């Protein structure tokens, strides 16, 4: 187990190295540099050159990359060219919002998706099955941002049940420790702040959950249907175990493996969807910031954020691989 984790983490290094080099070269091929974003169209060539020199952009690309790697080893991702703050602190301020949003979406997707998929399989061909299969088809086909607007229009603007934007009511004077608003509220026992933050998460979380929910329902259903036909289920029933035990310990547990795999692969899609939902709900996360960074040609922010996201994605999938052995004792990671 330990060796497996170490080997996977070591494998991460060449992947990140390659990714960062590709990104580095690619980003610098974007037309217009940060000097255009700062000066606009009016800057003289001398002013542009001065800014490029001050950022070290006039040096050969491999020299720039070498400097980037030397700093990266010290976990220094540089300074944003548009906000003049360190990339790491920009990230720590914004990423918690995106994490809260994706975790909410995952909780909804898993909490509803697995039971629904399981029930649909048990009641195959009945109304609930048709409804959940049909619903999940539509869930995949709805553009996320459109769903976000519809939810916002109905539940926030018409019914007024939920707030329409932001992460927390600005009138609440909440203490910030980790920038995870819900966690901060719980840690400081400011329950109203935590509850308000959760309240702000419901609609964007629901919109973002639509695609993963649909996928989890479908995969759970298919997987349960396959396991129900296995010999060991018949054996378990034949040896007189109660239906409850057979369902829980034999059917559900054995059908979870493909579901867990899909959850790992969904993380990338969730982060993409987060960009869209954050935009609709004016939710302070990394989505809008990355989008601005592309327009501003903010190389350090783009490099740093994209690399961290890639690391997160790989780590989530490592966790997924590790969880296999918890779910299925036959799987031994080596």
């Amino acid at each position: 187990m330990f060796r497996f984790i170490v080997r996977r983490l070591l494998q991460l290094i060449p992947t990140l190295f390659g990714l960062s080099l590709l990104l580095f070269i690619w980003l610098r091929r974007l037309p217009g540099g940060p000097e255009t974003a700062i000066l606009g169209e009016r800057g003289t060539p001398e002013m542009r050159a001065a800014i490029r020199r001050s950022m070290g952009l006039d040096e050969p690309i491999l020299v720039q990359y070498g400097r980037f790697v030397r700093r990266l080893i010290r976990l220094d991702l540089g300074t944003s060219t548009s906000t003049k703050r360190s990339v790491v602190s920009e990230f720590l301020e914004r990423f918690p919002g995106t994490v809260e949003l994706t975790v909410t979406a995952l909780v909804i997707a898993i909490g509803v998706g697995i039971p629904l998929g399981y029930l649909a399989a048990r009641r195959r061909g009945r109304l609930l099955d048709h409804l959940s299969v049909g619903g999940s088809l539509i869930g995949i086909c709805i553009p996320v941002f459109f769903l976000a607007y519809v939810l916002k229009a109905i539940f926030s603007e018409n019914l007024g049940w939920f707030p329409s934007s932001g992460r927390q009511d600005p009138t609440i004077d909440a203490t910030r420790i980790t920038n995870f608003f819900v966690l901060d509220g719980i840690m400081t026992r400011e329950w109203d702040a935590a509850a308000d933050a959760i309240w702000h998460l419901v609609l964007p979380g629901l919109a973002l959950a639509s695609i993963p929910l649909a996928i989890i329902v479908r995969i759970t259903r298919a997987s349960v249907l396959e396991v129900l036909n296995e010999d060991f289920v018949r054996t378990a029933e034949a040896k007189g175990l109660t239906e409850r035990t057979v369902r829980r310990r034999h059917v559900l547990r054995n059908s979870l493996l493909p579901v867990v795999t899909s959850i790992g692969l969904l993380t990338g899609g969730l982060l993409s969807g987060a960009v869209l939902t954050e935009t609709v709900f004016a939710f302070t996360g990394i989505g809008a910031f990355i989008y601005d960074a592309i327009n501003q040609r903010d190389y350090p922010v783009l490099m740093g954020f994209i690399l961290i996201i890639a690391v997160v994605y790989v780590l989530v999938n490592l966790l997924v691989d590790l969880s296999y052995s918890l779910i299925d004792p036959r799987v031994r990671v080596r």
Partner: protein
Amino acid sequence: MTITAGKKKEKLDRLAELAGRDDERGVSLWKEAFRRLRRNPAAIIGAVILAIFVLVALIGPFLVPYSPTDTIGIREGLIRPGTIPGADGDHWLGYDHQGRDEFSRLIVGARQTLLVGVVSTLIGLAVGAVIGGVAGAAAGLGGRWGRAIDNALMRVIDMMLALPSLLLAVSIAALLGASLTTVMIAVGVVSVPVFARLLRGSMISQANSDYVLAATSLGVKKPKIALSHVVPNSLAPVIVQATLTLATAIIEAAALSFLGLGNPDTAVPEWGVMLADAQQYLGIRPGLAIYPAVAIIITALGFTLLGEAMREALDPKLRK
């Protein structure tokens, strides 16, 4: 002695006859799959939706009552700040924010939407299939060097997978500048790793099959085995995926338009651009967003239904 030999011959004849009859019935994977596809109501619904969609895309522009670029509403003074008139007898879905006939735009928009979906899927399919095909052939047939090639290619694919797809698309759009071609390339590139992994996996699972062994022992060259035996037998999941990708491509293109990276030429209507434009007028005329959104959802549903049904029909586990 002669009696037993005669019996044996009879038996063999009967066997041969049975085998021959089996052949006549056509056990080819595709024929069998098509037969099952026709019996699946989901496939029929999907195919009908797509047939209508393609028909509208092809002949719709010649049948629309108004020009999709004619700003009738403004000319007739119907559009004032804060009001967009809804449906009347001549304009079935009312006007858009520039006073153009919404129904005509919706119909003409089908063509552009189909074009974006098909071209971007083809881009992803072509690039992904080449990478996946080379990796699969190298891994399955190429020995140690083959495995090294496969490994290198798959690491690149892993890197692409580790990037959120929309981020990849957005940065490509920024790199190339907003245009229709950009949207197609950006949406296409996102699906490259999916196709590459699928074809590679499928080819590797075919590499150990008997027909590869047979071809090898007959002295067929490895590249020829890969191209004319393994690849055709590995294409089924790729074709299914392409059908499903057509749905996501249309949705992804709409997302790019929403982020302001769509086709800047708004004279040619496209559903994603129409939906993105309508977000500003949700308070005044929500229909402007709902019509293109419903059109996108139904089309995506058509591709998804057909794709899923194809997957079921081609699944060897479900074959009799």
